[in-house]
């Protein structure tokens, strides 16, 4: 794996928020190879959302280096290398499902015919046929998130950044979307960085789980997930699955599950960006 060119390469990365001097990230080193599915897991305030945003050039690091596809993160963003999915679907209410999916294509200068064809493929991929003309608020939470995923994939970004995309959904919907995401990942052969606070979700989806600890946010361990591909409903029942879940849990415990200062991360990011 190390011989291949990394999609993401982080060296000595740190991030200190100017407000309150909070050290969100400290000395992060991470290499992510093409086609990997890497989960970032850790207690609230461990900087996993910040790390995702630093990779996506939405937050500026205060130290260290970010290289994405051999470029600076900023250049990668300007080249539209990123597809991003947040916890909220972040759909634009004034756009229909089809037009939400088409948004990045419009901005990328795709012509109408190509846009329509691609939106059709994406609708099929996330199984939303018949809902093209609907507005986001007419859809359930799970369907909205599928639209969000379709939009992120529509322009074939080389790197998919997902920030707790299924965190607000019920368990049933979540497990179904987990399966769909794996199916999409196999078909699209993209690289995914996935933030979650669910241990079983991280183990089920990932090829690698990166365990982080809070204050300062650091990587405390990396668990290689050697479960066979493709994964399915039986995967969750395998003994190896439970071993890996236990391993991740123990590493989390070793890093301290202290969640003091919970939930401050989003606010700090928003304040920093002046949003």
């Amino acid at each position: 794996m190390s011989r291949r060119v990394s999609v993401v390469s982080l060296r000595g990365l740190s991030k200190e928020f100017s407000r309150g001097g909070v050290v969100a990230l400290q000395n992060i080193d991470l290499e992510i190879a093409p086609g990997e599915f890497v989960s970032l897991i850790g207690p609230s305030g461990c900087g996993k959302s910040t790390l995702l945003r630093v990779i996506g050039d939405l937050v500026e690091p205060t130290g260290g280096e970010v290289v994405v596809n051999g470029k600076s993160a900023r250049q990668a963003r300007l080249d539209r290398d990123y597809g991003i999915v947040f916890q909220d679907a972040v759909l634009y209410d004034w756009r229909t499902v089809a037009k939400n999916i088409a948004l990045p294509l419009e901005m990328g200068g795709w012509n109408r015919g190509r846009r329509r064809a691609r939106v059709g493929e994406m609708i099929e991929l996330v199984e939303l046929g018949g809902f093209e003309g609907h507005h986001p608020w007419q859809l359930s939470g799970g369907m909205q998130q599928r639209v969000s995923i379709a939009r992120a994939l529509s322009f074939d970004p080389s790197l998919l950044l997902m920030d707790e995309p299924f965190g607000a959904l019920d368990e049933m919907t979540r497990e179904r979307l987990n399966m769909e995401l794996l199916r999409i990942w196999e078909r699209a052969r993209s690289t995914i960085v996935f933030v979650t606070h669910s241990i079983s979700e991280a183990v089920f989806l990932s090829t690698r789980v990166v365990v982080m600890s809070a204050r300062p946010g650091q990587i405390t361990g990396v668990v290689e997930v050697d479960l066979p591909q493709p994964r399915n409903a039986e995967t969750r029942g395998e003994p190896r699955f439970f071993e890996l879940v236990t391993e991740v849990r123990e590493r989390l415990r070793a890093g301290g599950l202290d969640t003091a200062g919970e939930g401050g991360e989003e606010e700090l990011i928003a304040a920093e960006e002046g949003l």
Partner: protein
Amino acid sequence: MSTTAPLPVQPIPRGTLGRRVGRSLGDWAPAALVFLLGIAAWEGLVRGLAVERFLLPPLSDILRTLWADRSFFIDAGLFTFKEALGGFVIGSAAGMLVALVLARWRPLGRALMPYAIAANAIPIIAFAPITNNWFGLLNPASKMAIAAVLCFFPVMVNTLRGLTSVPPSSIELMRSYAAGEWEIFRRVRIPNALPYVFTALKVATVLAMIGAIVGDYFGGSQEALGIQIRRFAGIFAFEEAWAAILVASVLGIGFYAAVAIAERLALSWHPSVRGSQE
């Protein structure tokens, strides 16, 4: 539709036009009934209790007076309506433009907003005699100026709120598509602001009519409705004064309704609009 993943929601069928109208007639029936009862009560109570004419004339007398002199009342109404419309257009356009500038350059907005909020608390109508002096008593521009200033603040404040109350993740997403500031305005901030803008515009129609009519009260052309209301009330021509007030009311409601219809057309995507159609 796929058979592998059962979908929790089916596409919502679009209602036929007939069904929509039928349902909306049903929705309107209670309001229409209240309207008719109100008119009947007015007429019945004023006549039954022999209410003095200077307090409130019977509606039928007012309508008869209005009909007899209809071209006069309509001309006066349109004259004042033009003052109101001119002020509405100028004030609202300026409000939206200033809001765009303040939203684009936030430090400027932060520096100016306290003053805008303070200015918004000023009873602007008090300036009517002054604008009469500035533009000339008989010049419709003096009434437009008052109406415009009255419209400006709510439109500006609401537009600014709409432009800036965008979830941070919406902006982050646009930035991840390599969008610049103006593209974010065009594709996210401005559509996000539209419901706020229309709410303000509806308020502004009312304020524009108030500005024009009260501006007339402080003096103006004999063609203006406000001048006529004041004159009729002064010479005890109560039916005429009420007829003029009725014209002003109908124009005001029509103005408001026109903006409300424009809102429905422009915001056909909005839950509040779509929800009432389904």
